[in-house]
């Protein structure tokens, strides 16, 4: 899962100025860290749905994504 997130999905998200990192996968609960543009995206939930869908299609796994958004200090107002 870690390599799938970081090698397959992350480059796509980086292409839009975003950033995703694998944190953990426990009991189908996938924790992902979002940085860059993703950290302040107001419609990130749509992207989470896409990630879940891709994981289902490519890895055959059902996951619930727990996003952690790490917003840089200059956007943290």
């Amino acid at each position, binding site marked *: 899962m870690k390599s799938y997130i970081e090698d397959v999905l992350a*480059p796509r998200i980086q*292409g839009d*100025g975003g*950033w995703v990192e694998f944190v953990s996968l426990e009991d189908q609960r996938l924790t992902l860290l979002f*940085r860059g543009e993703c950290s302040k995206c*107001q419609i990130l939930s*749509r*992207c989470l749905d896409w990630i879940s869908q891709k994981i289902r299609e490519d890895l055959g796994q059902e996951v619930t994504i727990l996003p952690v958004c790490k917003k840089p200090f200059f956007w943290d107002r």
Partner: protein
Amino acid sequence: MAHVKVVRRSMRPEEWTELRFGWLQRGIYEEMEEIQDLTIRDARQTGENSYEYLDGGERPLKKGDVYFTPDGTAFIRGSARVPERFRGRDVYLKLSTAGEMMVRVNGRYAGGLDPNRDRIYLNPFLQGEEVRIEIEGYNRSKPDDERNPASLGIRGCRQIFEGAFLATIRENVQSLVYDYILLMDIAQCEYFNEDYRHFLYEKLSHALDLVDFDTWEGVDAAADYVEKFIYGNTDFHGSGDVALVGHSHLDLAYYWRRIHSVQKNARTVLIQLRLMDRYPEFRYTHTQAHTYEMLEKYYPELFEELRVKVKTGQFEPVGAMYVEPDCNIPAAESLIRQFLYGQHYFRRAFGKTVDNAWLPDVFGNSWIMPQILRKCCVDYFVSNKMSTWNDTNRFPHNNFIWKGIDGSTVYACVPPTHFITWNMPSQIQENWEAYQDKEKGGQTLSMYGYGDGGSGVTEEMLEMIRRFPKVSVMPRVEVTGGADFLHKNLLHNENLSVWDGELYLEMHRGTFTTKSNLKKMNRLLEFRLRTAELLFSLQALQGGAYPGDALRDLWKKLLLNQFHDILPGSHIHPVYEDAMQDYSDISAQITELLEPLKRDDWFNPLPFDRKSMVFIPEEGGNVTRDGSRGFWAEPGLPGLASGSVAPMKGIPGWLKVLNGEDHTLKVETPAYRIHFGRDGSILSLWDKTLEREWVLKGAGFNRLHIWADHPGTYDAWDILPNYRDVEISTSVTSPLSLTFSDDVSAEFTAVLSCGSSTWTMVLRLFARFRGIEVEHLVDWREKHRLAKVNFGADVLTREILCDTSAGYIRRSLTRNTTWEQARFEVCHHKWFDLSETGAGLAVINSGKYGVGLEGTEVSLSLLRSTIRPDITSDMGDHDLRYLILPHAGNAVEAGINRLAFEYNVPLVQARPAVPEELRNAICSSGLYLQSMKLSEDGKCVILRLSEQDGRRARITFPTPVLCMNMLEDPEGEAQTVQVRPFEIVTLGIPL
């Protein structure tokens, strides 16, 4: 006493007008018929015009569906029939999107859609009732959000499809909406007369009283009212004279990769062409030869349309350069090539030489530019940022004359406001108010049009222009072209002020340092390309082959990566990966090209004798430098000559090392007595030859400092003046110790740590050379840190000399004025020098550009670690080198320019035949050979020579040569050429 803030809760009359204006906008569309059979196929762009389709194939696309994927391109298609009731009317495709779409209708490019425009006029593309639609849509992750706040909420990788419709509009409502956009903007803008604004609100409200917002009756009456009572009013007056020039700025890479700019550009051009169809008075300016080249290659149909519009004068190529490069970091020859390849493209494609440089967004401009502009047939220079982005001083001119380092002058325009505006009266009035040359500069320039894939001018902007003359308080406006504006207002204008110096931008000072690897590779490849062209030119002089196309392609790839959001480091991570891949490819291709020329002998590509140490890579060598094994060779190889190299002769027993207190080291060489700190800093540097000390006691010399670096939103761009407020401590993991020595050189190594980063500093001393080389091997893992090395020199001087790549600039070290204070971080090239009468100290680098000037303390900026736009910026391994060189005399007397070239231009394995008379002519002139290449027409070998030291020079050839401009146009003949201080001359040797 309690303070009670009175808040008005009831609706103000102005709000009632604004509310009804919103209702009016909803009435624009009269009828809409949804297109039902759309399909979508997801893809990802893999090249300039290639895509990989993603799994899932083609699927239906319905209103309410989520569409677009991260970094995705969506291909949408479908068909519809024009409803019977629409026939004979103007029919539109209506589609609201946060993406950028290029639309073909019935097989022809019909227009573009994006957050700034949601409809395309279909009538010219209709063939009967059938409408076939093909859309290429790219999800723009970085809309013009700061300028279009409404788009912020929908910014993201996945979007909700709002449906596509065939639609008709109520022309009268649309027209009245345009009236209200214009007049409401004035009413809300404090730049305009307060009484007029009050008058406007009153009349605008009365006009809307006439409209029934259910039946849309009364719209014509309202329009008549506006015409009669607002446009017809002449009691109020404005002032000003503003030239409006349509333009769309396009970053070739930024929050997108350069491959995406091919389509961004095509969409922009398409949209402008379609506007020209409907608004014959519309004129538009477009920069960067590269964008035209891409359009010609991938969108020939659009390019042919563009070519016609160029002929009619509606579409105007501006900006003579290949791309809009950074204008601080690229060396002189790179800037010349930007013009050479740009202008040759414009000549071939359109039969015209562009006479202006159009660089609205670049981060300051080097003092070497005016001469290069002049000699590239460019008389005018346009660049916005100094006026709108300076953080300390207001740049004092807008229309002026810019004098360069050699005394060349060009007409310059630094427009008073941003280069992206949407042509609102408030923006035009603001431009006029900010314009500082009202009495002597003629008109002020206001560029209008969205940028960066926002696709330029909109119908709304052009409708504004049609209405401006009717508004009495507006400045006079003239719709014009870029060149026409410059010619009309600047040419022969004897009242213009003169700015003699660099155009320093008081912002974005971090871009000299951010993404160190890009800067290092750019420097390396600039010189490698120079060497390759030199070797092949010498071969051409002997009748041999010259791989002109291959070398030009490599140059263009390098020039593309000098774009002002690539080389400066202000971009997302994939852009960095693309650039590094390009650099790797360029380097490999140079190696491959040079392989047949490889010989056992070594060639000195510089036009003067080698005087400093020469590092020769060799697997069995006893020294490791830049990650390669090798050995130090004897200097002395003459300029442009080949020969064998021998290991440098050493001096037995030349080095004495004593342990000092606290793990410091006291070292004596034939040149110095040095006291090293345990961290690799130099506590004392006693010059035995000059009998003097070089280190200012207690100031720190070659001392590494890590500063907290929190510049804010412009993270990759800026270093703030307060960066020295917080120093991050470093610890010495391994104190400086002698790690290698022989009769030739010695290495001392210290290992430091900072956070989770490891910093290894290697200092090299030489038995027979005065330079002290410092190599930093860094595993860099910090965030928001700025690494600098300080040089607190015991040199009484109030100025620093900085290399510009084609001459040096003197910069003040005093901090008396705000202009001096603002220049606390500046750009230099290969060296800086601090000198007193009789002696000085130079620091020569191999790929660093940022220099900090804090009074007498000078620092070389080594690394940053920003997180926006790229959170990985500068993370990883770095190998950085510089040479500390105390010298007798000043920088010119000490030959620092030459030594800096030697430090950056290695010997190459080759044995070219160099005509002896030519070698003597070049090498005895004292000039630097910037470039030797085959001319673009293949008829002669070009010599580009520059005077680097600020004195007059002369070069005499055995037979007459062609005197040329930098575009390689012959301008005369001469056998002896006089060269002025800092002049660059281009000469041709006929083949």
